[in-house]
């Protein structure tokens, strides 16, 4: 029956967790996720500055390039992205049996946080694919300018990529920050409802902002 009876009788194997690997992966996952979320917040504001005019965006981007923040982002974000994916993939139910259990659970439980996690796993995989394409086409494509970005958004069909990536990425980031907060006990039970409200507000604002910016790029 139980392995633990055996383990208790054998002091030499009783201790289960000599390894720190799971703990370190968990730390890597949360830190890389928070790093990406921070980046995404800046990225959303930068791209939305086009709403104030193409010249504002060019000036902001020029300022960031002058202090080499673009170079920093161009190598750190792909690294964080990869590291975060590897860390988070340890929790994604790739096995069919696990997926069956998760779907059955989410469907019967009708529990918002459980669905939020399903969204987290699905949006993570989507962001992985779309984000890699996005980074591939932008990093190394030269200075950030409203004109070149607008040209990218306007070339055939590409707007679909952005229409998917922006809400999914932001949704994943906001749910992720919420989850990181509850998992590590930064958000306590008494604040949970409030945190959810603020999160939805930030998400709504972020999605509106990036959709408005997309419209601007598409018509620039």
């Amino acid at each position, binding site marked *: 029956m139980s392995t633990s009876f055996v383990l208790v009788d054998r002091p030499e194997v009783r201790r289960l967790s000599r390894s720190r690997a799971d703990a370190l992966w968990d730390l890597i996952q949360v830190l890389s996720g928070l790093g990406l979320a921070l980046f995404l917040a800046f990225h959303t504001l930068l791209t939305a500055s086009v709403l104030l005019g193409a010249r504002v965006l060019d000036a902001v981007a020029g300022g960031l390039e002058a202090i080499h923040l673009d170079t920093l982002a161009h190598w750190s974000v792909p690294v964080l992205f990869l590291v975060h994916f590897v860390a988070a993939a340890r929790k994604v139910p790739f096995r069919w049996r696990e997926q069956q259990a998760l779907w059955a659970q989410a469907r019967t439980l009708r529990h918002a946080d*459980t669905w939020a996690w399903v969204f987290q796993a699905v949006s993570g995989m989507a962001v992985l694919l779309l984000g890699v394409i996005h980074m591939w086409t932008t990093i190394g494509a030269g200075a950030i300018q409203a004109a070149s970005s607008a040209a990218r958004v306007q070339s055939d069909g590409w707007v679909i990529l952005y229409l998917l990536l922006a809400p999914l990425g932001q949704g994943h980031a906001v749910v992720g920050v919420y989850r990181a907060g509850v998992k590590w006990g930064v958000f306590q039970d008494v604040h949970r409802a409030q945190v959810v409200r603020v999160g939805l507000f930030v998400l709504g604002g972020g999605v509106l902002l990036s959709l408005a910016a997309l419209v601007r790029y598409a018509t620039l």
Partner: protein
Amino acid sequence: MSRTLTFHIFRYNPQDPASQPHLQDFSLEETANMTLFIALNRLREEQDPGLMFDFCCRAGICGSCGMVVNGRPRLACQTKTKDLPHEITLLPLPVFKLIGDLCVDTGSWFREMYTRTESWIHTNTPFDPTKEEARMDNAVAEAIYEMERCIECGCCIAACSTARMRPDFLGAAGLARIARFALDPRDERTDRDYFELIGNDFGVFGCMGLLACEDVCPKNLPLQNQLGFLRRKMGITAIKQLFRKD
């Protein structure tokens, strides 16, 4: 006022080779202040004496009547039918071994969990029966008591997606057990000792923070806060050990 309730109840007897898992429908007139405890007993008395389900205290104390009520794990004795729609689906708790119909064996699971978490006070202080008991700060005693209120109903385990995907995940009740001893000044275990019990994906790092446990626990244990407390404690322990060689 009186409604006719329709119950869809999971029926299966693993002991009987002819038995097939299925949902069986029952109708029952609702009465005032009816709980699922009352409803199930009436169904057994009036309609099917073979219906299997567990009850003992009928007051939310013994933890034996956990079942999945319209999708959510709950205590049947604490669930009033007036708070439910007229169609009620009752399933046994998942994760635990099925005994038959709505009965599951939570006992073996909890026994195993207590062994895994070494759920007793570890101390080298010799016991002196002539001495007065050592005093404990009231706030600490209350925090410990908060965790001791767990009635081992298994609802938090059945609601947990992680527990359903990984059978050896300790679950909220198990982690809460560790939190209880970590709060107790009489237990001489160090953070490193606890780390060896729960510092992995079967323990606190397997928890994905879905908070279903928090949301279904019928005794409202502060599971979210305690899981967060343990994760921080164990995360810090892991970092400290990185810088120490042994």
